[in-house]
């Protein structure tokens, strides 16, 4: 490791300029401000810090943020696979448009998807009016929060799983079928092993995105403390009360979780690549 030079020689110019600009800009815009957040939280003593982050209202917000994000990512695990499979394996009219629209929740401002979802799922909305007689209330409940997070996470799951499904070798499926394997057996023994790393990566991406999501959720959630209040909203409330240290403490918790998720996603992607090379393709 030590024998490896700091930078391998190259005939191309401009390393100093571009590397310097990159690290400077990165530090000024991203790293220093993030450090300011952690330092602000460090102004609290450990006992104060824990009393802020373990406060009943904060714990209630974690339960909603994490619970709804997990559930949304799980829904996406199923439907993301179904949509990706449909787009890779089947031809049907309008497929190209639908494929392009998958990225819509990513390109659409979160405030727009927030108010639009709320309108559709409100008691008198297009979909909400049919759920109301069944006793299902979506808008202003945890179900609405889950739905918003499902929409936000969907492109991440579909776009991660799509290339993996394209990798599944059809001749293996055919061979298995000739040898008498049933549909479920083919799915479990041939398709699933190939797409599993991608599905888990997509799950982690959708989950990580959901935990931090703010714009699309605050319109459809009722924002009731302990019930339908997500953690990012609690941070905003603390900031508006000028409780900077409390907000920084909660922000640090979320930042740590983001780091852990980022690490998990990188490990999952590395695992996927290793599997990919080992299978000799």
């Amino acid at each position: 490791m030590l024998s490896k030079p700091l930078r391998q020689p190259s005939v191309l110019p401009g390393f100093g300029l571009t590397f310097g600009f990159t690290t400077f800009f990165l530090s000024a815009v991203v790293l220093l401000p993030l450090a300011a957040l952690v330092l602000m939280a460090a102004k609290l003593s450990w006992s104060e810090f824990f009393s802020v982050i373990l406060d009943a209202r904060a714990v209630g917000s974690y339960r909603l943020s994490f619970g709804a994000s997990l559930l949304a990512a799980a829904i996406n695990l199923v439907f993301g696979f179904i949509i990706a499979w449909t787009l890779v394996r089947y031809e049907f009219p309008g497929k190209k448009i639908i494929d392009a629209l998958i990225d819509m929740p990513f390109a659409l401002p979160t405030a727009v998807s927030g108010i639009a979802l709320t309108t559709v799922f409100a008691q008198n909305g297009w979909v909400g009016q049919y759920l109301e007689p069944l006793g299902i209330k979506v808008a202003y409940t945890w179900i609405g929060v889950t739905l918003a997070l499902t929409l936000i996470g969907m492109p991440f799951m579909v776009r991660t799983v799509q290339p993996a499904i394209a990798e599944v070798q059809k001749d293996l499926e055919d061979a298995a079928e000739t040898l008498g394997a049933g549909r479920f057996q083919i799915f479990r023994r041939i398709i699933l092993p190939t797409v599993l790393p991608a599905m888990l990566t997509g799950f982690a991406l959708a989950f990580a995105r959901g935990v931090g999501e703010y714009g699309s959720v605050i319109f459809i959630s009722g924002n009731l403390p302990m019930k339908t209040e997500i953690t990012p909203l609690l941070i905003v409330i603390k900031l508006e009360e000028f409780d900077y240290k409390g907000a920084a403490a909660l922000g640090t918790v979320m930042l740590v979780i983001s780091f852990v998720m980022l690490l998990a996603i990188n490990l999952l992607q590395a695992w996927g690549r290793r599997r990919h090379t080992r299978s000799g393709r």
Partner: protein
Amino acid sequence: MAARAKDIFVDEHATRPGRDTFMTVASRALFIGLSLAFLAGLLFAPLATVFVMAFEKGYEAYLHSFQDDATASAIRLTLITAAIVVPLNTLFGLAAAWAIAKFEFRGKSFLITLIDLPLAVSPVISGMVYVLMFGLQGWFGVWLQDHDISIIFALPGIILATMFVTFPYVARELIPLMQQLGNDEEEAAITLGAGGWITFFRVTLPKVRWGLVYGVILTNARAMGEFGAVSVVSGHIRGLTNTMPLHIEILYNEYNFVGAFAVASLLTMLAVVTLIVKSLVERTGYKGH
């Protein structure tokens, strides 16, 4: 009917011995049906709602909502923010991609992870970090107040927060693309006596132009649509520090649905244009990341 019959018989599953055609057709219908039902409820209905609500009281009410001063100033502020943020992040993306894709150095993957960091962070945190730095009780709050400089609840804060959120997009498009295209042509240009800048503008830039176009257009869409981060730093001063997404929230909470969805319809059209550009770029053979 003829087309349906052709589908069944051309389908390769159907021609295979031992596989009954009914199950193949049924599973195909099930997959397509489930996909469309899921997308219809969760994506298509909300998209359609935006325009139905915006035009609920007619075409004139829709146009009238843009004559409101606060709406006009929100649109102006959003355009100003994007005009400052997009070029800066494009410059950063080009520099980062050149440093990372053209050279081998230690700590490279760590640097890439750091560049990706804003994508993993909650938008609320992206805005909050600047409040903690420049807000009245933040690290530099008192100093800024003494010198009569306002960053939070003003344009600079909005620009910083937007920059943070859209920071990685151009770099993320360009780095894999430049790595994949390799250095051969650049090395040839340099060896033949071209300078660094000439090599960049004449060799590298034309090679990566489609990736750059998509990165820039995505940065622009996210910059104009950012809500959470900007909401934290803006202070929601009507007519002064309200961007379009923030103005949507205010109009919506005032039950001015036509106004809220009219502004939302502009941002939705921006998203549609972004996706169209993406498809056009992909048609050139470039595959997005």
